[in-house]
């Protein structure tokens, strides 16, 4: 499916509105983390990945693993808008007995590739999926979306050492670099910077993009595989809480959920009310 940029921007605003609404309705945290990766997911699901919502288990499909599982609302809303499951299911988010828990569960909703929430798993799993594709002569691509705080997990760097040696050039890591983690600035808690150079030093082709510029995200993602034989790391500079003025770059929204008034204000800002 290809859509023009204006359509994708509208889609991203709708998804943001839904994400804020889900957080309000269920009283769930991690809203800022979800809002920061919406454009990444929209670009991937509507402009890059070879997927068919009617056949979510097609063995030849491209895969996206949202390794930062705490941003599940962004993934669920994107999948629902893309037609993987009905909006009625999306509206059961976090309700008792729902197939959509606060963080993705295995074999839950169509389109969810892996259960995440414990950080630092998605990339290694994605590399296994990529190697399986090679063994089974399938040419799909694997995209793994991680958070910057997640890069503090040691397994991320085990995986980062593993992928280049096996020339897994069909793998893209996208780091939603919003400069915050649960309780503070990510670069004040661990020595992440310079992040692009770290990935390069591990043998990846790395680039930095504005993680809210859909065109830039599409261009970077579409270049994979880039012919160099290397896996690709896209450092996407983002803003936590992006799209709602009073949530942007305010880490309180890692934990808070909006009240009715805040939801209404957010929807107005997003042009949805």
């Amino acid at each position, binding site marked *: 499916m290809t859509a023009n940029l204006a359509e994708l921007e509208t889609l991203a605003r709708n998804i943001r509105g839904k994400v804020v609404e889900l957080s309000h309705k269920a009283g769930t945290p991690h809203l800022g983390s979800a809002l920061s990766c919406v454009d990444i997911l929209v670009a991937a699901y509507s402009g890059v990945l070879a997927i068919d919502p009617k056949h979510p288990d097609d*063995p030849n499909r491209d895969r996206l693993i949202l390794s930062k599982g705490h941003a599940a609302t962004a993934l669920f809303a994107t999948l629902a808008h893309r037609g993987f499951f009905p909006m009625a299911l999306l509206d059961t988010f976090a309700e008792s007995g729902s197939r959509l828990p606060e963080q993705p569960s*295995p*074999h839950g909703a169509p389109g969810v590739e*892996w*259960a995440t929430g*414990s950080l630092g*798993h998605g990339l*290694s*799993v*994605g*590399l*296994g*999926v*990529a*190697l*399986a*594709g090679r*063994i*089974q002569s399938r040419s799909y691509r694997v995209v793994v979306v991680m958070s910057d705080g997640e890069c503090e997990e*040691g*397994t991320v760097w*085990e*995986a980062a*050492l*593993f992928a280049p040696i*096996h020339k897994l050039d069909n793998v893209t890591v996208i780091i939603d670099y919003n400069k915050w983690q649960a309780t503070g600035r990510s670069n004040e808690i661990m020595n992440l910077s310079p992040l692009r150079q770290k990935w390069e030093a591990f043998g990846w082709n790395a680039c930095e993009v504005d993680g809210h510029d859909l065109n830039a995200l599409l261009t970077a993602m579409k270049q994979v595989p880039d012919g160099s034989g290397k896996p690709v790391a896209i450092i996407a500079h983002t803003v936590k809480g992006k799209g709602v003025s009073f949530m942007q770059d305010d880490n309180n929204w890692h934990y808070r959920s909006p009240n009715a008034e805040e939801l209404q204000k957010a929807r107005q800002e997003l042009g949805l009310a």
Partner: protein
Amino acid sequence: MRNAFASEITKLATEDERVVMLSGDIGNRLFDDYKKRVPKRFFNCGVAEANMISVGAGMASCGLRPVAYTITPFITTRVMEQIRVDVCYHNVPVVIVGVGGGLSYASLGATHHSCEDIAFLRVLPNMIVICPADAVEVRLALRAVLQQDSPVYMRLGKKGEPVVHKGIPNFVIGKAIIVRPGTDVCLLSTGNMLPTTLEAAEALGHKGVSAQVVSFHTVKPLDEQLLAESFAKFKVVATIEEHSILGGFGGSVAEWLADRPAQEARLCRIATPDTFLHEAGEQEYAREVFGLTGPHIAEKILQAAR
């Protein structure tokens, strides 16, 4: 057991295109034949076991049958998080193979001992736990587990252990094998303790006590039928394992027993104590220290049978 594993997995990988071998930088030359015959399905994952397990989970989710192999503590307790979340939570058929179970690598120190792995792995939902007794059981178990759709943990010893089975026993996951019939006491051995358990049975025979010996290769799921029959029939049922007294095979049988009405037999758990071994020494030394020898076991059974 190690060489039997290498030779059998090579055979199986040539027969079954789903089989992929993942090694944690171990088995120097052990897999040369495999690598020659199936080069595209062998990956040395380096000294990065956590990544190896999750890579295996990703492969298994695509229909492959990865077999991840390294020294027991590094493929069990070190990577519990990856086994729990990526393998067991997703219920994907990764075969986790630990070499050097229990005190096999005693001389390398307690970092390389593994007397807690059964306890850790058996509490994970979906996980099957198998401890083959000898090279024959290793081959049979490997064939059987590759037909499973669940995660499996296989605990091997080292190389050169005695082969107990003279023929090819009927190997079914979850069904224990009676190796030596007897009438007074029943010795349930798991994994590499089987030859020593047979020695203990011999020693008991000399004292006029007839001991049945069972290779209880599957710790999870337990062979409940055999347990029920044994506890109804014998005076003493003993569990024998090269693993901690806490949470292992004996622990598992004790849990099973606790939920049932009083039985004819009393349970006697023979295992390593709740401690680390700090001194140097080979497996034989470590077993001597912990009382895991034929004579020591026979003595404990005699006391329990009094």
